[in-house]
């Protein structure tokens, strides 16, 4: 049964383009350079790595367009996306350089089509959700993204000899793959960034944003939107405990991050139970999936010239009887990590946890070399160390292992971690994936050599902020669209013939995302012959008439067109 209330007329829809083919978005590079420089540099260049340009400027422009096309092919939008780009001299020295920058020029909130109220969207994403370009084309003010890159890179005095590789094949060798850098920077411009002040936690002009909406702290269990400014600022420094909650990202974690994260898992007491990030050691036995289990016992040693603290493990432990067969806990400080680990091992410990003596997270690794150390050693943060120590009197049971149930770059619940180190790193914190992610991801704060131009977890995140797939641009995600390739013409066409009858669009129910024209066309797909098609259309039209969607004369027009069509 088809319900009248579930239908809207196509003419009333905010559709910018008639479409029945798989869409994408058209990303245009707006060349902002003057003649003779940047993208217009006439220096001859030999085609490289699939880039057919024959001048330096042309190759730069083609590399930009190539990176833009990678995103354009995966993101559906009726609105053109313009990137105002320049190559220009940026700051550099022989050993350091600014490669470039990019970002959204404008953000919008509370526009028709916005998925969430009081939430900022990048200009490019606004165009998709709004269904039309929110900007007037022309120059920088008419562009959704601004990008500028260093034209001097590789020249004498500017990261001398290390250039942008302009090929499309990622065969960059010792040079810097421009396409990878552009993919990364464009993703920021498309919305992979928060606009909040992550140092203070303050929202921009009091608005949330589509990226921030997805962030939660798994220590407090709070979403960033529900936090005060102070809570957000603290969460931005809560290393390896801040995650993206978007369903697309979480679903994509198993396909993008490998199993295995070194963890300390406290088993009891209940109030302390849970997974704690650890820094692993360059010495001793590496953590494995089997792991080491035991009670955690504070190692005690004399306060002497090798170390003033009685818990620094710089001298042979005095409570070997208590430590033997257990996991020793010691404090960082005074002596080297290998001294502490060796003393714990000599006391019979099966593993050693070294609690940091300075604030910061996630815990860094433990350096040093001593082949005689055979037990595993890890570092925990100062705050975690204090929390554990406070419970030792009542007994703490723990396991140290490479936890195969936890993906490298995800939390215990399989949610992707974002980069929230303490101390805070302006420009890197929050708007990137955590660096523990393995394999490396495009949106980590570092451009790693092994990136492959793939879109890894980054595309699912863009899906979660609003870049839902929509091949027919009908504002219904293809993931729930019963007709992802709808015929969205304003009137019903049957076999190429325009009936003149207004087309309708189902906004709910089993035909969600379909038009009347789609349903008529579907009758032809399964029909054995023309008679069966005509009969099927008749039944459909009767239902539509009963539902009050079509009048009798409209039904007659469509039925007549079906009878006259060469279908199937």
């Amino acid at each position, binding site marked *: 049964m088809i319900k009248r209330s579930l239908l809207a007329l196509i003419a009333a829809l905010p559709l910018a383009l008639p479409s029945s083919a798989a869409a994408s978005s058209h990303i245009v590079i707006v060349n902002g350079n003057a003649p003779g420089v940047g993208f217009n540099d006439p220096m001859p260049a030999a085609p490289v790595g699939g880039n057919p340009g024959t001048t330096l400027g042309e190759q730069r422009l083609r590399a930009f367009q190539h990176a833009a096309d990678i995103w354009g092919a995966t993101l559906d939008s009726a609105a053109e996306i313009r990137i105002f780009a320049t190559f220009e001299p940026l700051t550099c020295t022989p050993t350091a350089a600014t490669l470039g920058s990019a970002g959204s020029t404008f953000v919008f909130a509370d526009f*028709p089509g916005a998925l969430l109220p009081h939430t900022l969207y990048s200009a490019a994403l606004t165009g998709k959700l709004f269904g039309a*370009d929110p900007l007037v084309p022309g120059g920088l003010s008419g562009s959704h993204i601004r990008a500028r890159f260093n034209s001097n890179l590789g020249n004498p005095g500017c990261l001398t000899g290390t250039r942008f590789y302009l090929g499309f094949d990622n065969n960059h060798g010792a040079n810097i793959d421009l396409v990878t850098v552009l993919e*990364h920077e464009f993703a920021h411009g498309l919305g992979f960034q928060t606009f909040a002040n992550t140092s203070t936690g303050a929202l921009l002009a009091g608005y949330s944003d589509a990226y921030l909406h997805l962030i939660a702290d798994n220590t407090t269990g709070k979403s960033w939107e529900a936090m005060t400014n102070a809570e957000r600022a603290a969460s931005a420094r809560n290393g390896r405990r801040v995650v993206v909650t978007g369903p697309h990202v979480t679903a994509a974690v198993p396909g993008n991050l490998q199993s295995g994260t070194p963890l300390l898992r406290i088993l009891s007491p209940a109030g302390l139970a849970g997974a704690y990030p650890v820094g692993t050691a360059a010495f001793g036995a590496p953590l494995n999936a089997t792991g080491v289990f035991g009670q955690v016992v504070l190692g005690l040693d004399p306060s002497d010239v090798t170390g003033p603290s009685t818990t620094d493990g710089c001298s042979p432990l005095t409570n070997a009887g208590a430590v033997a067969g257990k996991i020793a806990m010691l404090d960082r400080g005074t002596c*080297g990590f290998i001294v502490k680990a060796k003393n714990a091992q000599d006391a019979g410990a099966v593993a050693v946890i070294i609690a940091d003596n300075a604030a910061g997270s996630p815990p860094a690794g433990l*350096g040093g070399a001593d082949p005689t150390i055979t037990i595993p050693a890890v570092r925990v943060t100062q705050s975690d160390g204090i929390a554990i120590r406070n419970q030792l009197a009542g007994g703490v049971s723990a396991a140290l292992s490479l936890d195969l149930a936890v993906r490298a770059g995800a939390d215990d619940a399989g949610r992707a971690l974002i980069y929230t180190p303490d101390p805070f790193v302006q420009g890197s914190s929050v708007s990137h994936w955590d660096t523990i992610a393995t394999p490396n991801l495009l949106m980590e704060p570092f451009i790693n050599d092994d990136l492959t131009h793939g879109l890894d977890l980054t595309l699912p995140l863009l899906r979660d902020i609003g870049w839902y797939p929509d091949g027919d641009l009908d504002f219904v995600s293809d993931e729930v669209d019963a007709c992802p390739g709808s015929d969205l013409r304003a009137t019903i066409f049957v076999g190429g013939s325009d009936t003149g009858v207004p087309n309708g669009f189902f906004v709910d129910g089993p035909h969600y995302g379909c038009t009347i024209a789609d349903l008529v066309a579907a009758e032809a797909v399964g029909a054995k012959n023309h008679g069966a098609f005509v009969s099927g259309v008749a039944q459909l039209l009767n239902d539509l008439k009963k539902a009050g969607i079509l009048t009798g004369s409209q039904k007659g027009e469509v039925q007549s067109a079906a009878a006259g069509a060469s279908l199937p």
Partner: protein
Amino acid sequence: MRTLVSALSAFIALGIATAAHAQPPQTPPGQAKKQTAPKQTADHGTGDAEELTPADQELLQRLFGKNESAVVLTPFANGGVRLELDESFQEAITVTIADDGSLKFSHLTGLANATEAVKAASPNTTATKPVTALEEK
């Protein structure tokens, strides 16, 4: 050409746009990549402190982060708003050649910060330590 104002006034809002984000989880895309190069490992222990204390670094970052006061907010009659962002909101990327010849990338907010970071970088500061170095104490 359409401005936001004229486009908003022409827009006919239907329920379908807001229903569009009720999407099921996506099938994991693609294949997991092979890791062929060592990762840069951020090591934030106290031994990493260079010229500035963490408190000083945070103060500087607060001073030179996003410039919210330069944001131009334009309200529209239908309740929508547009915010124009200046260069301080751009994501900038810098690179330094480390002693071992590897490239060390950093992200900063705004070109001005990137410029200062590059000027501050010298063989005796940011590039002196191999990026995978671990503290030994």
